[in-house]
C-alpha cells in the first residue's frame, strides 16, 4: 500500500463527559476519495477537526504523509477544509477570498492573482471575482469555498458535509463536479456526510462511524453488500431479517398470485401477504408480512406496472424469492434498525 496521506491511530477526544471520538484508527491512501458516514453526533466533524488541527486530541496521533502532526497548529498542516457553512470572509470579494491562503503564505501578488483566477475558472466561477460572498447563491458560495481551498494545492482536502445546504438538484450536480475535480487534481478527499447515497456513489472507500467508533471501513460495495455489524446493515440502506439472515430490499423478487408455480431451483423463497404497497415512480415499495412472522421490505422496478395496478395489490398473496449469494449475516446482538421491524 502506498504511503498513507492520513494515518490516524487510536484517536480519542472527550468533551467533558461526552466521548465524541472513542478510539479511531484510519489509513487514508494518497489520492483517495474517502468518506466518513454516520448519524448525527457520531463524531464525524470532530475527527475532521482533529485532522485539521482545530482540536487537540485527548489521546492518539494524526499523521499526514508519514509525518506526525498531532502537536501542530492548523496553519502548520498541509490540509485545507471546506466548511459546512463555507466560512467565506464577508468583507472580502470572491477573488480576495480565494487569494487568501496564498497571500498569508506570501506568494507574490501577480502569481497569486493568476492562480486564484485559474482556481475560479476550474469551479466555473469566472466573471464573479468582484462580488462579495453575500451577493452569491448557495451553490456559488460552495464553489468559492472549494476554490479557496484548492488554490493552495493541499495534500489533503477535508470536506464537512459540503453539499448539505444545497437543494437536491444542485447537490447532484455538485457531486459529479466534486468527483471530477478530485480526480483531476489528484488530491486526497476526506468527505463527511450523513447521506449514505452520497457516500456510496462518490467514494473509493467509506468509513461508517457510530458513537465515536469506526464500525466498518471498505469499498461502497463491501459496506453495502457485506455489512460488518448490525448497525452498518441498518444505517447503510435498509435490510430485512429473514430467519437468521439478512437480505437487501432490492434483492428480493416479488411474485404475485394465488396459484404460484413451484419455487425455481437453487433460490430461496418465502410466502407472505402484502401489508402495504407504495408507488414511488421508478420503483414500487412492498411491505410484506411473511408467513414465518418476519416483515420485509421489497423494492421492485416498475418495468411494466403502473400506479393504478400496484395499489390493488394490497392484501395479495405473494412469493418472495432471493438468491443465497445475497444473504448476509450480522452479529445477532445488534438487530438491524430496519424500518420494517416485525409487527407484534
Amino acid at each position, binding site marked *: 500500500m502506498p504511503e498513507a496521506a492520513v494515518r490516524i491511530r487510536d484517536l480519542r477526544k472527550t468533551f467533558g463527559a461526552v466521548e465524541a471520538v472513542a478510539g479511531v484508527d484510519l489509513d487514508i491512501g494518497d489520492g483517495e476519495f474517502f468518506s466518513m458516514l454516520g448519524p448525527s453526533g457520531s463524531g464525524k466533524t470532530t475527527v475532521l477537526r482533529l485532522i485539521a488541527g482545530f482540536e487537540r486530541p485527548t489521546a492518539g496521533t494524526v499523521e499526514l504523509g508519514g509525518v506526525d502532526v498531532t502537536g501542530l497548529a492548523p496553519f502548520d498542516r498541509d490540509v485545507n477544509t471546506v*466548511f459546512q457553512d463555507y466560512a467565506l470572509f464577508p*468583507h472580502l470579494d470572491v477573488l480576495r477570498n480565494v487569494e487568501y491562503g496564498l497571500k*498569508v503564505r506570501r506568494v507574490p501578488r501577480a502569481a497569486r492573482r493568476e492562480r486564484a483566477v485559474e482556481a475560479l475558472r476550474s469551479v466555473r466561477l469566472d466573471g464573479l471575482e468582484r462580488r462579495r460572498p453575500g451577493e452569491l447563491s448557495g451553490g456559488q458560495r460552495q464553489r468559492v469555498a472549494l476554490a479557496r481551498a484548492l488554490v493552495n494545492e493541499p495534500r489533503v482536502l477535508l470536506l464537512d458535509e459540503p453539499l448539505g445546504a444545497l437543494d437536491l438538484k444542485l447537490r447532484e450536480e455538485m457531486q459529479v463536479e466534486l468527483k471530477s475535480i478530485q480526480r483531476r487534481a489528484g488530491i486526497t478527499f476526506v468527505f463527511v456526510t450523513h447521506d449514505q447515497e452520497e457516500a456510496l456513489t462518490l467514494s473509493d472507500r467509506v468509513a461508517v462511524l457510530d458513537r465515536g467508533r469506526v464500525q466498518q471501513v471498505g469499498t461502497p460495495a463491501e459496506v453495502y453488500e457485506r455489512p460488518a455489524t448490525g448497525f452498518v446493515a441498518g444505517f447503510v440502506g435498509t435490510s430485512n431479517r429473514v430467519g437468521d439472515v439478512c437480505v437487501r430490499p432490492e434483492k428480493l423478487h416479488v411474485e404475485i398470485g394465488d396459484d404460484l408455480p413451484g419455487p425455481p431451483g437453487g433460490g430461496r423463497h418465502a410466502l407472505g401477504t402484502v401489508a402495504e404497497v407504495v408507488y414511488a415512480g421508478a420503483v414500487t415499495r412492498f411491505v410484506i408480512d411473511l408467513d414465518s412472522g418476519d416483515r420485509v421490505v421489497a423494492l421492485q422496478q416498475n418495468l411494466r406496472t403502473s400506479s393504478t395496478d400496484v395499489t390493488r395489490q394490497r392484501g395479495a398473496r405473494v412469493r418472495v424469492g432471493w438468491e443465497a449469494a445475497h444473504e448476509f449475516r450480522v452479529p445477532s446482538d445488534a438487530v438491524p434498525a430496519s424500518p420494517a421491524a416485525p409487527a407484534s
Partner: protein
Amino acid sequence: MTFSPAARIALRVLMGLGLAVIYVPLLVVLVNSVNADRAFGWPPSGFTGHWWTRAMDNDGARRAVLTSVKAGVGATAAALVLGTLAAFAVARHRFFGREAVSLVVVLPIALPGIVTGIALSNAFQVVLKPLGIGLGLFTVIVGHATFCVVTIYNNVLARLRRTGANLEEASADLGADTFQTFWYVTFPALRSALFAGALLSFALSFDEIIVTTFTAGPGAETLPIWIFNNLFRPNQAPVVNVLAAALIVLSIVPIYLAQRLSSASRGVT
C-alpha cells in the same frame, strides 16, 4: 396593537410632552448662546455672535476644552485595549470565572459616580502619592477608563458573539498565523464595533463630572468642571451658555454615528 382614536391622541400628546421636557431646555440653551440680551431676557430681544467670540477668547475655557479632549482620548485608548482584551477572553476562551467577568466589567457604570470617585481618590492617595504621582490628568484618565471600558467591551463582545469563531478557524486553516488572522479577519469584523464603542466612550468621558471631581487635581480642570465652577459667576454666564451649546452639538454627532454603526448589520470596510 390597535388603539381607539382618543387613546391614540392621548398617547401622542403624552409623548410630545415627554420629548418637550427633555428637549425644550436644551433648545433654550442653544438660543441663549446667541441671545443679545445680557440677562437672557425672554423672548430674546435680538441675536448676536458676541458670546461665541468671547468664549473663544476665554483662556480658562480653552484650556478646559483641551484637558477634556486629552482625558477623553486617553481614557478611550485605555478602554479600547482593555475592553477588547476582556471581550476576547470571554468570547473565545474558556476559563474559571468567565461568567463573572461581564459583571465585573459592567459594574463601574452602574455604581454611583460618587462611590467610584471616593474609592479611586482613596486608592490614588494610598498607592500613587508615595510614588510621587499626584492627582492630575493621568488620574482623571484612569478614573474615566474604569467606566469607559464597558462601552468597548459590550460592543466588541456582541460583535465577536455574532461573527463566531469559524472565520478565524477558516483563516488558520488557510495558513494564516495568529497575527495575520487578527489583522486580516478579526479586526475588519470588529472595526465598526470598535469605532462605535470609542465614540460612546469619548462622549461618556467628555461630560463626566462626579468621578472627575474626585480624581482631578487643581491642574486638570476638565470642561464640565470649569463650567460648574463658573456657572454662578454672572460675568461668565454667557460663556458658560456658549460652551453648553457647543457641548450639545458635539455630543449629538458621536452618539448619532455610534448608533448608526452599531445598527448596521455588517462591518464597514
